[in-house]
């Protein structure tokens, strides 16, 4: 199978990730629960993972790097900490359900959606500036749209939030490991990210970078302050109730090391090159409409397209039968589709990782062309 669904999960992982996970299963128990080697080794691995993540993402303190199950988990903590009934919240028009559903669950949230057209980061920053002038309690924005790969102007939005003293939550699901994500520059309240996409860790891992007091989403044992019935006030224990996913954390640590070794800039360029090449192949096909930034300066390795008179799920299924994995439909982001005008059709999403090659793109394009010809025959 040729896998172009890295926007959901990177399937191919560095070998070091698999090895670290197997080693963790065999040798690690729970961190902080005992003065014996299995627990101490888990402690050491967890600490190392927090430290290396803190370094990669511009955090002063490893204590403020919290392990989560995925980005959705982190976003829920962040949103439910900052957004209360009646809060005024500004979000971009490209948010995932991981943002919009938690907001929907809080009553009487007054939401402003900044629905700037695709690939216009300058305009989007200006639109956020206008929205912020009306007043807000929280701003939430993804760094990269999971549907269209467009890079949002988070640097500018962060500056605006800072000026207006409004806390910012950044969803770095599609950018962590692909673009510079820097807490020290953005000074966001929270940055949430998965471990299993651009950080090349396993599913069931994520990080929440915290620069703000937090409310707990879940309570339980932490191996600390056990007589106290309230959750500890200090991070990371405050947000890490229960036994840690040590195989996952050990894998994530190796994923982060892989990203650091290879370099975020290099990874980004490689994915952009693959996607730009795919776009050049697809734009020659009759009936294919691409959603892309011409020079790929404002787009990562994610490319959405539609095929005239064809159901996107049907095309996705035909590609799957030919050994090509892509994501079709709404990609859990109906708001992004509404903003881009593709809510009815959905899109087919191609998303690359560093393990993809140009020849795989050629094969993908050839199979798609073949499917389109089949359609003509029908």
């Amino acid at each position: 199978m040729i896998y172009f669904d890295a926007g959901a999960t990177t399937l191919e992982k560095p070998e070091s990730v698999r090895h670290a996970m197997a080693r963790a299963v065999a040798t690690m128990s729970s961190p902080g629960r005992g003065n014996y080697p299995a627990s101490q080794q888990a402690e050491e691995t967890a600490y190392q993972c927090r430290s290396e993540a803190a370094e990669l993402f511009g955090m002063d303190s490893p204590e403020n790097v919290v392990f989560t199950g995925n980005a959705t988990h982190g976003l829920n903590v962040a949103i439910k900490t900052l957004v209360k009934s009646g809060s005024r919240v500004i979000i971009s028009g490209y948010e995932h359900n991981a943002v919009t559903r938690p907001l929907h669950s809080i009553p009487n949230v007054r939401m402003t959606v900044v629905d700037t057209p695709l690939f216009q980061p300058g305009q989007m920053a200006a639109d956020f500036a206008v929205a912020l002038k009306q007043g807000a309690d929280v701003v939430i924005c993804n760094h990269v749209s999971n549907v269209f790969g467009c890079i949002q102007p988070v640097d500018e939005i962060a500056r605006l939030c800072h000026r207006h003293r409004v806390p910012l939550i950044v969803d770095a699901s599609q950018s962590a490991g692909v673009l510079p994500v820097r807490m020290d520059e953005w000074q966001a309240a929270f940055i949430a990210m998965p471990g299993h996409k651009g950080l090349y860790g396993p599913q069931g891992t994520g990080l929440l970078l915290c620069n703000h007091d937090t409310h707990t989403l879940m309570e339980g044992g932490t191996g600390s302050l056990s007589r106290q019935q309230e959750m500890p006030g200090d991070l990371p224990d405050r947000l890490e109730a229960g036994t840690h996913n040590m195989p996952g954390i050990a894998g994530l640590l190796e994923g982060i090391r892989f990203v650091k070794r290879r370099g975020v800039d290099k990874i980004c360029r490689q994915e952009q090159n693959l996607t730009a090449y795919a776009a050049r192949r697809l734009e020659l096909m009759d009936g294919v409409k691409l959603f892309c930034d011409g020079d790929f300066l404002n787009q990562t390795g994610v490319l959405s397209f539609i095929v005239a008179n064809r159901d996107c799920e049907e095309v996705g299924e035909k590609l799957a039968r030919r050994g090509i994995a892509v994501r079709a439909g709404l990609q859990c982001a109906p708001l992004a589709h509404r903003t881009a005008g593709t809510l009815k059709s959905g899109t087919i999403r191609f998303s690359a990782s560093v393990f993809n090659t140009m020849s795989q793109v050629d094969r993908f394009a050839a199979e798609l062309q073949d499917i389109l010809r089949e359609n003509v025959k029908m």
Partner: protein
Amino acid sequence: MDYYLFIARSVTQAQHMARILANCGIRAAVLRTPVSLSEQGCSHAVKVRAEKWNAALSCLNRTQLQPLHIYHQDANGYSEVRV
């Protein structure tokens, strides 16, 4: 042998403290705090040799990592150190 225990807020903070101390050239071990010293239940501590405790405290004072309590351990048991 005499030791000092710097009680941390979490195992992660204890590890961070041990790293900071290592950077100051002070060897420190992370361990679970003896239950007799854990007023609020389980916690973690950083253990340093007695002759290093002052240097350790100075080293930590240069960061934002402040121990919750400091205990001196000798043949007579533990005694809290007020700083």
